[in-house]
């Protein structure tokens, strides 16, 4: 797996930085990180440039993470891009909803870099 471009979607700028740091600590070689504060901003960002991996919160204003994942297939350059949810919503119901919507992984906050590695690497390997 070479350098990757990641899109991090979270309404908290602090959490976006922590997710980026966790990706680097997990040994993932980031070429570029694109940030978005909600699902609508993320769709707009994807319209401008493609990415290799998306990490996305669920509870966000304007457009939440589940709706964002449902709308992803409408974008040509987002098809097949793996999405891993990172969220405080930890119930089975939320996991099922996220996976049904198209997410490939699910990480509950609080999380360690090892958990990020455990959930992100398999979906990146499958992609390559």
């Amino acid at each position, binding site marked *: 797996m070479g350098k990757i471009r990641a899109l991090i979607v979270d309404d908290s700028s*602090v959490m976006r930085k922590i997710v980026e740091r966790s990706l680097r600590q997990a040994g993932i070689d980031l070429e570029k990180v694109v940030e978005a504060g909600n699902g609508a901003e993320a769709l707009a960002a994807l319209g401008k440039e493609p990415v290799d991996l998306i990490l996305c919160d669920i509870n966000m204003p304007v457009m939440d993470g589940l709706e964002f994942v449902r709308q992803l297939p409408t974008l040509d350059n987002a098809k097949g891009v793996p999405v891993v949810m990172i969220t*405080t919503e930890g119930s089975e119901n939320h996991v099922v909803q996220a996976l049904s919507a198209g997410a490939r992984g699910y990480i509950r906050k*609080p999380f360690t870099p090892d958990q990020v590695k455990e959930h992100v690497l398999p979906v990146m390997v499958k992609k390559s």
Partner: protein
Amino acid sequence: MSTDTSLAVRSHEENWLPILELATEEVFEIMLGCRVKPMDKSELPTQPGGFTAMVGLAGALCGILTFSSDRETARELAKCMLGPETADAEDQISDALGEICNMIAGNFKNKLAGTDGRCMLSVPTVIKGEEYTFRSLADGESLETVMLFGNSPVAITLQLHS
């Protein structure tokens, strides 16, 4: 426990304070890399204030969780999360406290059997300053703990609807 009211009833019958404290300890240990421990509230002259983050709960469990600290402690918490060079801006401090509150609320409800997808969290709100009066319409159980972060107290309160 299958009905929405059962969780409110359980909050009276069960002691949820250790669960709230454990949820807080885990967030500090995993996300901030430091330990906190409960302290005797009677040793605290005044409730810590300056920054107060709030997250609402709705659904099977209704109420509000607040996380309060003084300004300097809030800055230290943000530094733990972000590193010393990035955490001086007020908006980043507020953002960090909001996320801590959000994660404590999420971790707490995930530890309660029976909430399974039936309890939602609001996005966090953060109040700066001390000269305000806070009144929640939650009229049920109130859980409150003060924990020591280094030598600084942080207060976590969960007020529930009955």
